[in-house]
């Protein structure tokens, strides 16, 4: 479900004038997708899933259930053995700048400064120089990287590096951002900070997010909708809509009764899968 956009950054013009996306207009569709490294060992079978414009969707599920595979299929890194992956109604043919990807780590360009990393996607876009600079500046402020613009990735902590990675993907405003356990490698405190910033960014930059995680807490805190995948090609086991008080990034949401209720429900469902 789309959230109202905050106006605090309208001056910076990071986003187009916020247009409320049609509530359930599909941006990504998987219809009866089957995939496996070989035909005899499938990872996904006949999976149908729809991602709506602007929503924050999280995939949860036991290891090996195909969460990352779904993400790789949408990104265009893999091709399905059967079925169809579509983006805005068009079949996905390969990687595209309309679908951003944030990896678990190690995807920054070590030879470029923070600023150069973030501005990388703009090399392939025809925007005015001023516009590019402004957008980079805005996103650097949004993720709290001021003062580190000229630093190189090796001079940053793990959390800071992931901030750069998120900013780099988000600044070009993809229609969907695919995140494969992006915060798995950082410590808990840093992780919580990153989650809150991600939610703030999601409010500023229109576009859907598909998030893959093992953590139930992370899923509840971040998502509008959580999809649990079953073991053994079982497909979608459960779907939960999450409604927590706005703004969603308030840390207090983590200790609310509603949050705990969602967590308990999801925990029991995950247990049921085994």
């Amino acid at each position, binding site marked *: 479900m789309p959230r109202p956009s905050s106006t605090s950054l309208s001056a910076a013009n990071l986003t187009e004038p916020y247009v409320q996306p049609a509530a359930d207009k599909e941006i990504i569709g998987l219809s009866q997708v089957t995939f496996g490294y070989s035909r005899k060992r499938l990872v996904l079978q006949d999976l149908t899933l729809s991602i709506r414009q602007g929503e924050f969707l999280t995939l949860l599920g036991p290891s090996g259930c195909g969460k990352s595979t779904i993400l790789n299929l949408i*990104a265009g890194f893999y091709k399905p053995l059967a079925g169809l992956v579509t983006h805005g109604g068009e079949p996905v043919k390969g990687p*595209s700048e309309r679908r951003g*990807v944030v990896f678990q780590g190690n*995807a920054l*360009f*070590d*030879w470029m400064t923070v600023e150069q990393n973030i501005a990388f996607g703009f090399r*392939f876009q025809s925007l005015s120089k001023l516009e590019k600079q402004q957008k980079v500046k805005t996103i650097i402020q949004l993720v709290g990287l001021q003062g580190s613009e000229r630093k190189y*990735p090796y001079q940053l902590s793990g959390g800071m590096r992931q901030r750069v990675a998120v900013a780099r*993907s988000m600044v070009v405003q993809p229609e969907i951002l695919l995140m494969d356990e992006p915060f798995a490698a950082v410590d808990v405190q840093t992780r919580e900070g990153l989650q809150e910033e991600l939610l703030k960014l999601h409010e500023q930059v229109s576009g859907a997010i598909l998030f893959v995680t093992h953590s139930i807490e992370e899923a509840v805190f971040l998502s509008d909708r959580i999809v649990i995948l079953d073991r053994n090609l079982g497909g979608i086991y459960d779907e939960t809509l999450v409604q927590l008080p706005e703004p969603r990034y308030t840390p207090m949401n983590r200790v609310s009764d509603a949050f705990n209720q969602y967590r308990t429900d999801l925990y029991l469902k995950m247990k049921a899968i085994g």
Partner: protein
Amino acid sequence: MQLKASQQTAQQIAQQTAANAPKFKGQDLKTQELRERGLLFCVGIAMPVLILILWEITTQQGWIDELFLPSISGIVTEFFAIASKGYAGTPLMSHVLASLRRVFTAFGVGTLVGLLLGLLMGYYKYIRAAFYVVTEILRPIPPLAFITLFILWFGIGEISKVLIILYAGALIVMLNTMEGVRACPKQKILAARTLGAKDLAIFAYVIFPAALPYIFTGMRVALSVDFGILVAAELLAGDLGMGYIIQDASTFFNVEALFVGILMIAFFGVVSDFLLRLISARVVHWQG
């Protein structure tokens, strides 16, 4: 008055705390490290100095026949003699420049060729597959084995000398570049692709810089090999170059001039490697 009193107390407290502060015993890790580094440096310098002293003493005392090992002072005298009068009728500078021109022409062109092939072979599986068998066969063959063939094909002049050096260096740079490209984490390439980069941009902004540390390693190895091949190439034919001095001095048992040739090549080899290392540290600053 009251203020002054309280200031005094503050001062007293400060003094007391200073007095009570624990006295550090032993060295902290930083001091230890600095000390160790200093010691290691001294050992590194002491060894060659010791060798030189022993060399000079043994030769001065006549314990070793000058024919086998000339004294250092003898070599130095010979060097100045060659420097002022030239060698075999040619000024020393011409010998040096001839050699350096051969090495650096071959090294420069060889690096470019090796780099291009290495980038393509590293990135495109099919190009790699196409060249794989050929390079695997060529790799273990010492380049010098080809020298007579090269002379047969390209004549006894400058071209075959430069080409044999070029071949040896290019092969090394190519193999290292290829390894560097293959070692580039896949996520970086995919990340670039999802940001809109096409093949050419991926080469320029991702694969090439990612491979740079390997490329520099390859260049350093190639350069030292190139100096080795240079001497061998100049041994064969011609009347110019540091390798020629070595060869000519050997024929006439002029051991002092022989050492002058050897030490000059060592000097230029060390200096150029040092420069290359300096450049490498500047360029690939993100590496350790």
